[in-house]
């Protein structure tokens, strides 16, 4: 089984978000970057699959040189090799196109992504990528079992769950329950230093969308306190004052 896992480099979840250059750029000052948590689940699941049925796991990232610590971490967790496509990830379409250009002729059996990145929350790369490669896509999987040439999966759907099957090759995106992330051990960290990390220049692409500016939410007014001894009054306030029930 030849698996490709798409890795996004994102700000740590504790990041206080702010912007620079007239609110046009995300302020990376003092921000710790990590592998997108959902991508980490995809990577761990890919390793679990290849440990069971054999095969290789390649991690791919579209990003500039500063994303390499995250790629090295993916190698430390256990990916066999990695690829970085050297470009600013302009939008989901651009990223999907670059990955499709790379993966097109290499015959991956399975391409995994996270459900969404926790910075831009688009959740669009897996679907665009699958469509560009003319492959089926299965979103938000919570389990996957390999049975010969077929995968049996469960996924979240609106209001419930679906069990489904799909023949390889296809693209799937990882939802939270898929597995638990794996922490790299010392041996993995040492091995990661010498594992191959190929850098490829991006191909030109018509970028369809671009962020013009960012905004922060309006600050909240003061919190109105209700005395605990009169807690039932909350319902009256929500009804008469806040008018939400």
């Amino acid at each position, binding site marked *: 089984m030849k698996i490709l896992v798409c890795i996004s480099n994102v700000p740590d979840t504790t990041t206080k978000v702010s912007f620079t250059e007239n609110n046009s750029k995300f302020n990376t000052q003092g921000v710790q970057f990590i592998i997108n948590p959902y991508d980490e689940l995809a990577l761990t699941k890919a390793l679990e699959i290849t440990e069971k049925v054999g095969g290789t796991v390649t991690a791919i990232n579209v990003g500039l040189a500063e994303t390499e610590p995250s790629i090295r971490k993916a190698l430390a967790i256990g990916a066999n090799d990695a690829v970085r496509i050297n470009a600013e990830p302009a939008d989901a379409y651009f990223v999907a196109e670059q990955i499709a250009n790379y993966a097109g002729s290499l015959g991956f059996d399975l391409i995994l992504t996270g459900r969404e990145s926790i910075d831009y929350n688009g959740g669009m790369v897996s679907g665009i990528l699958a469509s560009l490669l003319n492959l089926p896509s299965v979103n938000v999987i919570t389990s996957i079992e390999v049975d010969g040439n077929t995968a049996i999966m469960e996924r979240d759907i609106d209001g419930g769950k679906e069990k489904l099957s799909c023949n390889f090759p296809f693209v799937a995106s990882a939802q939270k*329950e898929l597995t638990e992330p794996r922490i790299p051990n010392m041996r993995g960290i040492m091995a990661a230093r010498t594992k191959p990390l190929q850098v490829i220049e991006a191909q030109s692409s018509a970028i369809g969308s671009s962020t013009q500016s*960012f*905004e922060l939410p309006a600050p909240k007014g003061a919190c109105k306190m209700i005395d605990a001894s009169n807690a039932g009054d909350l319902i009256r306030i929500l009804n008469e004052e806040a008018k939400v029930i």
Partner: protein
Amino acid sequence: MSVLVFAENSDGIFKKSTLEAISYAKEVAKITGGNCTAISIGNVNQEQLSLLAKNGAEKIISFNHDSVNNFNAEVFSKIISETAKSENSKTIVFSNTYSGKSVAPRTAASLKAAIVSGVISYPDLSNGFTVKRTVFSGKAFANVNMSSEIKVISITPNSFVINETNDALNIIPASNQVDANDFKTKSIEVSKASGKIALTEAELVISGGRGLKGPENWHLVEDLANALGAATACSKPVSDMHWRPHSEHVGQTGITIKPNLYIAIGISGAIQHLAGVSSSKVIVAINKDPEAPFFKAADYGIVGDAFDVLPAIINAAKNRA
């Protein structure tokens, strides 16, 4: 020219998020010119289809067939992109549900269209075509310019009003050809929790955290939710400890929601949790620690132990009904 909107159904019923998308598409049609056309896929009766006309669809293309009652991303995106071509649609609108998120990107790729998801504004044409979307799980917003000729927009549920326009009912059967080879993913079993309100669509959400001390105390959250007709949610530690299913986890690495009312019980208000709920219209925090960060993000607060204050709140909610 038209604005095409995917009218997603759930077992033959159009949910609120679909009607929001219809009304949104109608507004986009007003802004960009052209009419509002809805595409419905699967068995939906005329009474339901008339809801689409009532809320803005000037034309309804219905692919009314048993083979597509179950959602399938490949087949649905094929039908929608073929329809977009035949209708000369320049903007295609989806709701950002699980199904919408699966089918919108495939449709965009088929049409070589720019795509923006999580959209919370109507397009602004004053300088190109710009929409506002949520980023960093609600910690911020981005104004995104879309420059391609065809544009795919996926809107966040609970972000737009449903406008009754009472358009005339105009149903046209779809002419797409779908055969068994188009179904690459095969559904084996679908299980839906009946009568449960989907979290992303819920207008009222009651959420519990570690302060509730254990899953055996969740009846307090559920009683209040039932009394108000609300959905239930939880914090990350609660789902990590398996007190509640992962599907209820709201926050930066869970589900992002924007209900009218969010009541957080025994949740301290870590930055990751706040990211997922800060777009809620009214936030109530109940916590025994007066220094809990949630009080800085809330509109109303009660400093008190959940076990002391909840019975009175549940009682008041029951008596109101």
